[in-house]
C-alpha cells in the first residue's frame, strides 16, 4: 500500500474505493491490446492471462488456506490434456470449447479431491512433498501413456474456440478477451470466497488447526474445498491456454512451472488478489520480454551474457530475497504483513531472552 498511497491520494474521493480501482484496472486491461504496435504484445497478454488464472487458483490453496502445494502444474496439465483429448483429432471427439471450460475445470477439481482426500491430514511440509510427488507423477504419466497422450510430442491440432459461429482463428485478440473474462470471473469468485464463511474457515485453519476444529470447522473437508477450488481454476487455465496454443505436451507442465506460479504469489503478495495478479504479470513480463531484451541489449553493448539462461537463478534469487526481506510480497494484505513481521518481534524478544539465559548460566 505504501507504493500506491501517494498516487491514490491525488484522486478525487469517489475514485478511491476498491470498486473504482477494479473498474479502472478492467478498463485499462481492455485497452491494452490497442497499445501494442503488433500482435506480439496481445499474444503475450493472452498467455500471461492464463498464468494469472493459475496464480489466482494457487492463491486459494497457498494464500487463503495456507496449504503449500508444490505440484500445482499437475492440475494445469490435467486441464490442458482434458481439452486436448476432447477437442482434437486424437480420439475424434470435438466438444465445444465453452462446454469444455466446465468439463476441464470439473475434471481438475475431481483430481484435486482425489489427491487431497488421503493427504490433507498431513502436516504442512509433508503435504508439500506429497504434492511435489504428484506434480512429478502426473506429467511423467502423460509422457509414458503415449497411445492416449501422444507421448513426448503431445497432442496437436487442437480445436479453436467458436463463439456464435465466429471461429477464434490465429489472431490472439479474441483469446485475450476470453482470458480476461475468465480472470474477471476468477477474481470475483476468489474474492467472494475470501469474505465468506469458507474463507474464514480457511484463515482459521491456516492459523490454528486445533482451535479451528473447536469452532465446528471440519478441517478435512474445508481443506479439500481449497484444493478443489484451486484445481478448478487451473483446469480453466489449462483449457484456455490449450485452445490458444492448439498443442499440449508434457514438457509444458514440469516442476519449474509449479515453482514459477508459486514465485508469482511470493512476489506479488500471498493471499492478496490484486497482489497475486501483479506478481503474475511481472514474472510473465520478465520471462517473455525483460530477459530476452536485456540479453539483446547486452549483446549490443558487447557483453556476451545470456540472461535467458539464467532464469532459474533469477527466480531462485527472487524467492530467497522475498522470503528473507519482504515475505508479505510487493502488495501485501494487511493481515499477512502482520503475520510475517510478528515473527520478527517475537524473535528479537526470544534473542534477548536467550542472551539473558546464557548470562544466567555462565
Amino acid at each position, binding site marked *: 500500500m505504501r507504493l500506491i498511497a501517494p498516487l491514490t491520494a491525488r484522486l478525487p474521493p469517489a475514485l478511491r474505493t476498491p470498486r473504482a480501482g477494479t473498474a479502472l484496472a478492467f478498463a485499462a486491461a481492455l485497452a491494452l491490446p490497442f497499445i501494442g504496435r503488433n500482435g506480439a504484445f496481445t499474444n503475450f497478454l493472452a498467455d500471461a492471462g492464463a498464468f494469472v488464472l493459475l496464480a489466482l487458483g494457487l492463491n486459494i490453496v497457498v494464500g487463503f488456506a495456507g496449504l503449500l502445494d508444490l505440484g500445482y502444474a499437475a492440475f494445469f496439465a490435467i486441464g490442458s490434456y482434458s481439452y486436448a483429448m476432447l477437442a482434437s483429432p486424437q480420439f475424434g471427439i470435438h466438444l465445444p470449447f465453452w462446454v469444455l471450460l466446465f468439463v476441464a475445470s470439473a475434471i481438475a477439481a475431481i483430481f484435486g479431491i482425489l489427491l487431497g482426500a488421503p*493427504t490433507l491430514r498431513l502436516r504442512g*511440509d*509433508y503435504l508439500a512433498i*506429497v504434492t511435489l510427488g504428484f506434480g512429478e507423477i502426473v506429467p511423467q504419466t502423460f509422457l509414458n501413456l503415449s497411445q492416449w497422450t501422444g507421448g513426448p510430442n503431445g497432442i496437436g491440432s487442437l480445436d479453436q474456440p467458436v463463439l456464435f459461429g465466429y471461429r477464434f482463428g490465429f489472431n490472439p485478440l479474441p483469446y485475450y478477451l476470453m482470458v480476461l473474462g475468465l480472470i474477471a470471473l476468477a477474481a470475483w469468485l476468489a474474492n467472494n470466497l475470501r469474505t465468506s464463511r469458507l474463507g474464514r474457515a480457511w484463515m482459521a485453519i491456516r492459523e490454528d488447526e*486445533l482451535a479451528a476444529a473447536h469452532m465446528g470447522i471440519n478441517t478435512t473437508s474445508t481443506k479439500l474445498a481449497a484444493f478443489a477450488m484451486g484445481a478448478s481454476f487451473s483446469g480453466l487455465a489449462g483449457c484456455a491456454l490449450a485452445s490458444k496454443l492448439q498443442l499440449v505436451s508434457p514438457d509444458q507442465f514440469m516442476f519449474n512451472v509449479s515453482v514459477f506460479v508459486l514465485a508469482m504469489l511470493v512476489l506479488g503478495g500471498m493471499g492478496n488478489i490484486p497482489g497475486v495478479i501483479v506478481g503474475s504479470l511481472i514474472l510473465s513480463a520478465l520471462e517473455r520480454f525483460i530477459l530476452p531484451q536485456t540479453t539483446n541489449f547486452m549483446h549490443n553493448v558487447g557483453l556476451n551474457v545470456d540472461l535467458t539462461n539464467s532464469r532459474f537463478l533469477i527466480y*531462485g534469487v527472487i*524467492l530467497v530475497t522475498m*522470503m528473507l526481506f519482504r*515475505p508479505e510480497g510487493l502488495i501485501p494484505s494487511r493481515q499477512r504483513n502482520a503475520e510475517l513481521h510478528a515473527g520478527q518481534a*517475537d524473535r528479537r524478544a526470544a534473542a534477548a531472552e536467550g542472551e539473558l539465559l546464557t548470562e544466567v548460566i555462565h
Partner: protein
Amino acid sequence: MDVFFQQLINGLSLGGIYALIALGYTMVYGIIELINFAHGDVYTLGTFFSLAILTLLGVDSVVHGPALIGVLAVTILGAMILCGLTGVIIERLAYRRLRNAPKLAPLITAIGMSFILENLMLYWRGPSPVPFPQVIPNPQFALGAVTIQAKQIIVVLLAVVLMVVLQTFVYNTRLGKAMRATAQDKDAAQLMGIDINTTIALTFLIGSALAGAAGFVSGMYYGSTWFFNGFGAGLKAFTAAVLGGIGNLAGAMLGGFLIGLIEAMTTQFISDQWSNVVVFSVLVLVLIFRPSGLLGESLPNKV
C-alpha cells in the same frame, strides 16, 4: 532369477548413494524440521567439485598403483569439505533468519536456493552431461551368473564406512550428543548451555559433506554428471529418508538401500520410464499410510 540377483547388486550400489544423501536430509529435518530442498543440488555439487579436483590433479582416466589411494583421499575429502562448507554457508545465509518463521517460508527459500545452485552449475559446466573420469580400475568378479564390478563394491563399502563413522560420532561424542539434544528440544538444549547455532551449522556441515562423498561416488559410478542431477536424485533420497523414518539415521540408511533396490527392480522388470513414477508413488503412499516411516515412532499430540 539371475537377473534378479544382478539387479540386487545394482540396487545396493544405487542405494548406497541414496543412503548417503538421505542422511543429510534426515539430519537437517531432525534438527530444524526443514526439508532442505537444496540438498540434492549439494550432492551434484559434490560431483562437480570432485571433477574439478581431479582435473587439477591431472586425472582423466584410471589411476593405477599407490597413487590411487592418494587421489581418492584427496578428491573425496576435498569434495566433502567443499560441500560441507557450501551447506554451512547456505544455512547461514538463507535459513538461519527464518528459523522462527512460519514453516512455508524456509521451505520456499530452500526451493529458491535449489534453483540458484542448479543455475550456477549450469553456468559452470553447461547444459549437457559432463563426462567423469573412471579413476579406479574396475575389474569384474563373477559370482555364479552375476557380475559384480569393483566400483559397486567401493560404493557400498564407502557408504557403509561413512555411516558407521557418522553413527559413532552422533552417539559417542559430545558434539554428537549436542546434536541429538538440539534435535529433541531446542530450548532445553539451549538452557543446558549448548550453542544451537553452532550445533545446527555442524549438522549442515556433516550432512552436506556426506552428500559430497555421494557426489564423488556417483560421478565415478555413472561416468558422467549433469547440472540437473540433483533434483531427481534429491527427491528419491528424500523418499528414502521418509521411508526409513525421517529424523532417524538408521532409517535413512535402510531407506536408501530400499529405494535403490526398488528403482533397480522397476527399471529391470517394468521399464525405466516408470521407475520415477514408482519411487514417487512410494513416497506418496508412505506419507499417507505410515508417515513415521519404517523405523520411526508415531508420537501422540500433547495439547
